[in-house]
């Protein structure tokens, strides 16, 4: 009797141990810096929305990959008409929304028309407004007729602003999102974490390795370091503690990847405010700035300098970093020429990320050298969005524009930096109408040069994409053309 008991205990202990070994890890915890204000990427401007929902809850017709290629997602294939104005998609037939509705071309038509509507708060509203007509007569085919040839439509359609929403659930998407993706929202602890759970009704459910994903909001860089070291988070894309990367690189438990993003980090200038409406003053600011010192000081040397509103990863990139070399003497001369009385007092509004807070301190010191007194004001994101972005109540601010190929924002005179230039709008019109890649690149170069010549903003550097993760986690993106965490590609070794 005694003997049997011991055998049973031993056997169950062995089974327990075996069980622990055999069950592969199927959950992942991902650190992120900012909490999204809602979960509807078609209605809010915050990049954090896409980091959680894009590809996971919501899907678009096309998918932008880490290497900036575009592959099919809800569309199986597509074709472009000879005049480059009509884009026709063949849709997948096995797609359902998470509430059971079947996905058809009607949903595509609804989503895009909603994004273009007068009351739309979609970040890419201008793009959707450029669609003249949407033909959804066949449930499995949708064709978009653009007003002009739209060379980069496939990219725009791959962004989180172009995800297909369920017409029945649009009002609730911000808090209770319903999409076609492999994950559903399980829990949102405000201020702490957002948990997604695998949706079993997904068309390729068998291919999804991660069953549960938790996004933990850790805004403090040193808390991020501690969470990684303690194993509280498995991966931290867009990791902010750039000064701690060396520590993780030398630790075999971790993998460290430093790629590029589409983030154009700029010192935005309020182009309508006096004396910043004078191009000479804006050029003086550009000359006063030493990009290398900013990248070294604020980003530990990570980040490629840029000279206009495009990153080296983009088609049509021209290196314009030489246009305004660091030249304080020239800056002072320009200010004098513009008859600005120094010290010129300007406000410098800084949102929370280190690139802004630390970069801002360095820029303020550099501006002080040429007689511009930048008064630093540290703000939270909500204040930044209302004060700077909406009310345009600022002189200078530092921000990274992370949306790919968004040079078109400069054609909108109401955009927060208020650049109002007819010549530039003409260039963008030509760019949008480019029939082929070569013309597109040429026009893009013109646009870049125009922005640099007018010194609309002071262009600083391409935001790097440092990722620190558990060495055993597969499927993370090195480069991040868009801010997304593609959970469906992740798995444990």
């Amino acid at each position: 009797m005694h003997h049997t008991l011991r055998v049973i205990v031993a056997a169950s202990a062995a089974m327990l141990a075996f069980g622990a070994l055999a069950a592969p890890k199927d959950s992942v915890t991902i650190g992120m810096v900012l909490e999204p204000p809602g979960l509807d990427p078609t209605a809010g401007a915050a990049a954090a929305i896409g980091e959680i929902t894009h590809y996971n809850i919501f899907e678009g017709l096309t998918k932008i990959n880490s290497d900036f290629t575009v592959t099919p997602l809800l569309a199986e294939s597509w074709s472009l008409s000879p005049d480059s104005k009509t884009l026709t998609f063949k849709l997948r037939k096995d797609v359902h929304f998470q509430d059971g509705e079947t996905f058809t071309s009607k949903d595509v038509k609804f989503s895009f028309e909603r994004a273009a509507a007068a009351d739309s708060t979609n970040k890419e509203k201008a793009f959707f407004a450029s669609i003249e007509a949407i033909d959804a007569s066949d449930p499995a085919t949708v064709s978009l007729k653009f007003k002009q040839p739209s060379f980069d439509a496939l990219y725009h359609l791959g962004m989180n602003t172009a995800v297909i929403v369920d017409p029945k659930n649009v009002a609730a998407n911000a808090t209770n999102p319903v999409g076609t993706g492999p994950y559903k929202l399980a829990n949102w602890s405000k201020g702490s974490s957002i948990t997604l759970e695998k949706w079993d009704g997904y068309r390729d459910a068998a291919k999804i390795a991660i069953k549960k994903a938790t996004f933990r909001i850790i805004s403090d860089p040193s808390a991020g370091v501690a969470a990684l070291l303690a194993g509280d988070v498995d991966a931290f894309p867009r990791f902010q503690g750039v000064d701690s990367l060396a520590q993780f690189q030398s630790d075999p438990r971790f993998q460290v990847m430093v790629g590029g993003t589409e983030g154009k980090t700029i010192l935005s200038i309020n182009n309508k405010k006096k004396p910043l409406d004078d191009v000479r003053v804006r050029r003086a600011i550009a000359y006063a700035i030493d990009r290398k010192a900013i990248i070294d000081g604020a980003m530990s040397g990570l980040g490629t300098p840029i000279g206009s509103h495009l990153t080296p990863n983009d088609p049509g990139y021209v290196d314009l970093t030489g246009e305004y070399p660091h030249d304080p003497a020239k800056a002072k001369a320009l200010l004098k020429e513009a008859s600005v009385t120094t010290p010129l007092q300007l406000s410098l509004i800084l949102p929370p990320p280190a690139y802004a807070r630390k970069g801002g301190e360095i820029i303020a010191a550099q501006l002080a050298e040429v007689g511009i007194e930048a008064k630093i004001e540290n703000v939270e994101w909500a204040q930044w969005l209302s004060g700077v972005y909406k009310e345009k109540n600022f002189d200078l601010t530092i921000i990274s524009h992370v949306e790919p190929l968004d040079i078109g924002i400069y054609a909108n005179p109401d955009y927060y930096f208020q650049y109002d230039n007819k010549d530039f709008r003409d260039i963008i019109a030509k760019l949008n109408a480019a029939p082929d890649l070569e013309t597109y690149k040429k026009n893009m170069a013109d646009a870049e040069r125009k922005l640099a010549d007018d010194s609309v903003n002071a262009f600083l550097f391409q935001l790097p994409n440092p990722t620190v993760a558990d060495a055993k986690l597969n499927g993370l993106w090195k480069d991040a053309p868009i801010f997304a965490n593609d959970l469906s590609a992740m798995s444990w070794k």
Partner: protein
Amino acid sequence: MSDDRFFARARRNGGFVLGAILVAALIAAAALSLVWTPYPPAAIDVPHKLLEPSFAHWLGTDSLGHDVVSQLLAGARISILVGIIAVGIGLVFGVALGLVAASVGGVVEDVIMNLCDFTFAFPALLLAIMLTAVLGAGVVNAILAIGVANVPIFAKVTRALGNGVLARDYAMAARAAGKGPVAIALEHVLPNVAPALIVQATIQFAIAILAEAALSYLGLGAQPPQASWGRMLSDAQQFMFLAPRLAVFPGVAIAMAVLGLNLLGDGLRDLLDPRLRARR
């Protein structure tokens, strides 16, 4: 009490001496920073960031290449400035309110004291955070906020002790002799509550330094490039794993300043309070 006896007893009070030395050092550091710091405190020197302590930088440099010694010296200046003005606001308005409450009495006293209780209901730091949130972040607003939080403290102390003084025979005699309430308050009450106020002011000074550091740490006090111990701490927080010394230096500075002021305050109470003196 003659001055000789005061100093003789002060020398025997170890805490008081240590406190006085620490506070003297704090004042000396702030005064020194007005005329000399090893480097300009706000000078950014990115190529020389996060240096270990060395002969060139005695306590090393921070993440933007600021010299830590220079920042500490300049930070002492802000601390003292905040302490003096915030306590000054508290003293001027608090003592005035307290004297009015004690002298007039009745409804006025009730109203003033209830207002004080109302302000006490908010923790001082929370009040300061509320005020800086409304008025905007910055040293001036931080000083105002801390000062406002000080007012009811001094008002309560003045009123409580003032009532005691007014009940004394000499105060009664002054009134009987036809002195007005204002004259009595200034000539009899104020001198007699002054020792307690000095002690309270020293303690509040320490609390003001802590509050400024806390507000600046939270980003509501001193704004860059202004040097402040609280700001140094919040910057150092990001480098806790790489350069913990950056948090230690301002931390020690704050601790020493607060310890010094508290010891000084305690010592002063021992020396100035007649009841304690009688027991010796």
